[in-house]
């Protein structure tokens, strides 16, 4: 199509984009679309595949599967309430511990407490935690963490046994060692994403706080953290998501026992550990049941991420709008 033809002399430097320019434009758009749909497709396929294979179990056990507390292959009784509880409990504990240390570390590394070079060394070490294989964490938990916390656990149980959290003794593996190791595993994620959020707080906001005579801690706690809160919340959601799905270290540390207990020292089980330990020996009858459990884990993870995203976008919309 010719545009402005009548006004042109033919000696202009400017001209319309060429055919190949348009082609590049269109093909780039196409590739981006394909990639985006591919990801959605993979997630959809995953859900469908797992859901489809779980159908026989869903028909047989219905929602009672979610509230049952027994897992007995011989009697063909299956319930995953202790696993759901264990997954959420261990993840929340890990989030509380890992979140506190991760965010503190992010503050420490971004708010000029350290010379830039030393901060980089610290950051690299924290990032390295993410590269340690899960199974190594598991061994470390068994041989270091459990013996280390046992005296403390025994003392707490003896003195404060009436508090539900300390109501059992630590027999070895259990919720607390599992959660502690899990906390360390999710710490690099939380620290890294929180650091990004804190670094994005504009300098002029800090300046405003200092200009009003805030001390460094007042500026951090009352201005910088609230300003970065959406990003830090995102970091916590991401960390929680990781904790929900973590398998190997938990399978080694959580005790794999179908118990429903508030006690930090009692052994328990998680969905991911249940799946990992039962799949190798699962017969044709058990596969759909495990698929059902996998579907539940997947849905919990999806729900956590979606709720997290919703809260974040809601709070950032509130921030801009007048409400």
């Amino acid at each position: 199509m010719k545009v402005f033809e009548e006004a042109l002399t033919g000696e202009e430097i400017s001209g319309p984009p060429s055919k190949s320019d348009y082609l590049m434009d269109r093909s780039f758009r196409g590739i981006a679309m394909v990639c985006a749909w591919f990801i959605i497709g993979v997630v959809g396929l995953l859900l469908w595949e797992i859901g489809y294979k779980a159908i026989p179990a869903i028909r047989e056990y219905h929602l009672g599967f979610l509230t049952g507390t027994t897992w007995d292959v011989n009697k063909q009784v299956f319930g995953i309430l202790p696993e759901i509880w264990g997954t959420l409990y261990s993840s929340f504990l890990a989030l509380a511990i890992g979140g506190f240390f991760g965010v503190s570390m992010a503050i420490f590394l971004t708010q000029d407490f350290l010379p830039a070079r030393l901060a980089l060394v610290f950051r690299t070490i924290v990032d390295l935690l993410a590269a340690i294989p899960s199974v190594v964490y598991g061994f470390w938990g068994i041989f270091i963490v459990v013996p280390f916390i046992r005296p403390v656990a025994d003392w707490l149980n003896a003195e404060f046994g009436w508090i539900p959290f300390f109501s059992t003794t630590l027999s070895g593996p259990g919720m607390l060692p599992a959660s502690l190791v899990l906390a360390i595993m999710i710490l690099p994620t939380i620290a890294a994403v929180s650091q990004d959020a804190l670094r994005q707080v504009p300098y002029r906001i800090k300046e405003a706080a200092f200009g009003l005579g805030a001390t460094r801690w007042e500026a951090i706690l009352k201005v910088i953290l609230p300003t970065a809160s959406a990003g830090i919340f995102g970091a916590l959601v991401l960390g929680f998501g990781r904790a929900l799905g973590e398998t190997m270290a938990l399978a080694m540390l959580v005790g794999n026992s179908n118990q429903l207990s508030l006690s930090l020292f009692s052994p328990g089980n998680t969905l991911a550990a249940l799946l990992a330990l039962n799949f190798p020996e699962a017969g044709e009858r058990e596969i759909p049941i495990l698929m059902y459990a996998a579907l539940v884990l997947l849905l919990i993870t999806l729900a956590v991420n979606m709720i997290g995203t919703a809260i974040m976008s809601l709070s950032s919309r509130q921030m801009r709008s007048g409400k």
Partner: protein
Amino acid sequence: MKANVNEQGNVKVKPDTQAKVVIDCKLDKVYYGDFLAVRDSHVPIKKGQITGFIGPSGCGKSTVLRSLNRMNDLVQGFRFEGNVHFHGQDVYGSTVDPVVVRRYIGMVFQQPNPFAMSIFDNVAFGLRLNRFKGDVEESVEKALKKAALWDEVKDKLKASGLSLSGGQQQRLCIARAIATEPTVVLMDEPCSALDPIATRRIEELMVELKEKFTIALVTHNMQQATRVADKTAFFSVDISAGGRTGYLVELGDTRQIFEDPQQQLTKEYIRGEFS
């Protein structure tokens, strides 16, 4: 050489018997690392007046302003030689905590920088910081009224400060700065990010505020200085020593600076020969 200029080319300020000096800034040298940013600038800020700082880019006017409440201490490598007397004490004295200085000398910045919290909480921030015992709501209302923002926000005090327009945000920042009733308010090009109408409002506001607060104002806009400032300090850049060092060229009543400048450099700048 004119009578009011001494041998180093520095200006001696004629004693002004009418107004008391609130901040007496005797800046000898300011360094950022090895870089000599400003030298020899003696600027007394007088009570109940607006002192305007004008000059070309890089002349150190902002640096001088930010030296008054030790905001520059946040910049790495900053070094101040000289002294700044405020209430009979040197704010650079070894026992003085910069945080305390900033609680008594308020500041408004170039870009509006409200916190990501409600309008009310923005204004109440300084009050809470100082553990204000009185009626916070009343003080917030008073500050917003003084900042000429009350009528626009009184029905939405819970709304985020970021939901306001640029000019409103800057008035919110002024309200935040004056809520704790500091003696002096420093304003670092407070209108540079605003449109002409919003600028006008802020200028009117400054003139109203000087009844109660002493104001030091950095502006890149000469007309603004003629409109609001009682005293004007003209700074320029000295490139003779190879660096770019700012210094005070001339300080006087605004009318005198603009109508009868004593220095050749001031004359040229006022005529718009460089900027």
